[in-house]
Every structure is written in C-alpha cells, then in structure tokens.
C-alpha cells in the first residue's frame, strides 16, 4: 500500500479511504466548476477528477512554500498570512486581495485583536511582489474586489 506523495494514482480504490483523504470531494469541486461554465455545458467526470488532483497539488505546493517561510522565520505554525504570502510568491498575487479580505472578515468574527495583528503583519509582500514574471491577469479574478462572484462571508 504505497503512499505516493506525488499523487500519482497507483492503487485503485481498494484503499478508498486513503484516496479520499488526499482529494477534495468531487461533488464540491464539480459544483464550483459548474459556476463557471454555461448552464447547458457538461463537465466530464474525468475532468472533475483531474481538477481534484490539481487542487490537491495546489494546496501542497502553496503549503510547502508557506511552511518553508515559517521554518526560516523559526515559527512552528503556518497561518493565513503565510498562505497569502506564498500565493503571492508563486505568482498568484491576484488571489491575494480577495483572500486577505476573506481572512479579515474571519478574524473580525474571531476577535478584533487578531485583525489588528494581520494589519501589522500582512500586506507588505504584495507591494514587493511584481507581476512581470507572471503576466497573469484574469479578468474575473482581478475584478473580485467588488463583484458578486466573491462570496461574502455569510
């Protein structure tokens, strides 16, 4: 029963639980995908499965970057700001703004104290990070500042 870190599917389903552990549920992933395509569009099961794999890889990739930062700074706990920082570092700085806002709302609920700390700690990396390496601008991502695509924290 090989636990393959690279994520390549080596075993089919006898170890259902392990496979499930490393992927997000296909129903959830599919639901999000459906929000993007037109109503009459179809999404193949294999496409959803591929997306599941991609998301898990995304999580691992970003987490790894964030945890390396923590290690360098001699911190044990990966927090939301580290995730935001890692995303910016990996070129996904368009995600940073909506995520920070999301995180902010969460922290407001948790307590004003945590929110102040985020303001103190976070935000500087986005100014440093320049996007010439990744000239990626995707309109619906970039416009999440005010649009309805961005789900309010409700």
């Amino acid at each position, binding site marked *: 029963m090989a636990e393959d870190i690279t994520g390549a599917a080596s075993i089919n389903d006898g170890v259902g639980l392990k496979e499930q552990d*490393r992927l997000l549920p296909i129903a959830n992933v599919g639901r999000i995908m459906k929000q993007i*395509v037109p109503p009459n*569009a179809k999404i193949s099961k294999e496409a959803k499965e591929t997306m599941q794999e991609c998301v898990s890889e*995304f999580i691992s990739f970003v987490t790894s970057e964030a945890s390396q930062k923590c290690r360098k700074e001699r911190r*044990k*706990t*990966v927090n*939301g700001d580290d995730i935001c920082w890692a995303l910016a570092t990996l070129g996904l700085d368009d995600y940073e703004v909506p*995520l920070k806002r999301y995180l902010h709302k969460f922290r407001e609920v948790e307590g004003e104290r945590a929110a102040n700390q985020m303001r103190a700690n976070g935000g500087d990396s986005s100014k440093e990070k320049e996007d010439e390496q990744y000239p990626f601008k995707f309109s619906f991502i970039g416009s999440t500042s005010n649009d309805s695509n961005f789900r309010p924290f409700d």
Partner: protein
Amino acid sequence: MRQAGTYSGIVSGGISGKTGPHLLPLARIKKIMKRSGEEVKMISGESPIVFSKACELFIKELTQRSWMVTIKGKTRTLSKEDVASAVMATDLFDFLVNLVSDSGGTHL
C-alpha cells in the same frame, strides 16, 4: 427584516459549521496540507479557511481556462484534455504539468 444565517451561523456554528459559507471541507483541506511535507508541523485554524477560498478561486480560474479550450473544439463538454491543455498553456500552472501528463496514464 433579519437576514437569517448570516450572523447566527458564524456565532453558533462557528466558522467551520457544516453548512457554513465554505464550499470545501476544512478538515480535508487540513489533511492535504499536512501531507505536503515533513516541515509542516502546525497549522493555524484560519489556514484551511484561507485555502477554502483560494481553492475556490483556483478551481474557477482553471475551469475558465479549460472551458476556453473546450469551446474552441466546438463541444459543450469540458474534458480532461481541456484541463490539461489549459495547464500547459499557463505558466502559472507549471507545477501541474507533470500531474496532468500522468493522469493520462494510470488514472484512478
């Protein structure tokens, strides 16, 4: 007129309530995070929350790009190959290149 669920869900159910605002299960996200490397020791409670939104954005973006490939082929079914093409065409998704190449072979 009170907006049901907006505040009460947060206060009572907590952020990780099962019918909460998150589209993706936080516990599963946390498990995947922990599998990403030995150096990942501790994860703050908010990290999976941030990821749930980040993953949503990621899925949406990759789906959008994949769909653009789909419609070029004049079909209405988004296929695995469309996802692979979108990955290949996007520098930002370089980290996925091996993954989508592999999935053509021994797929689960």
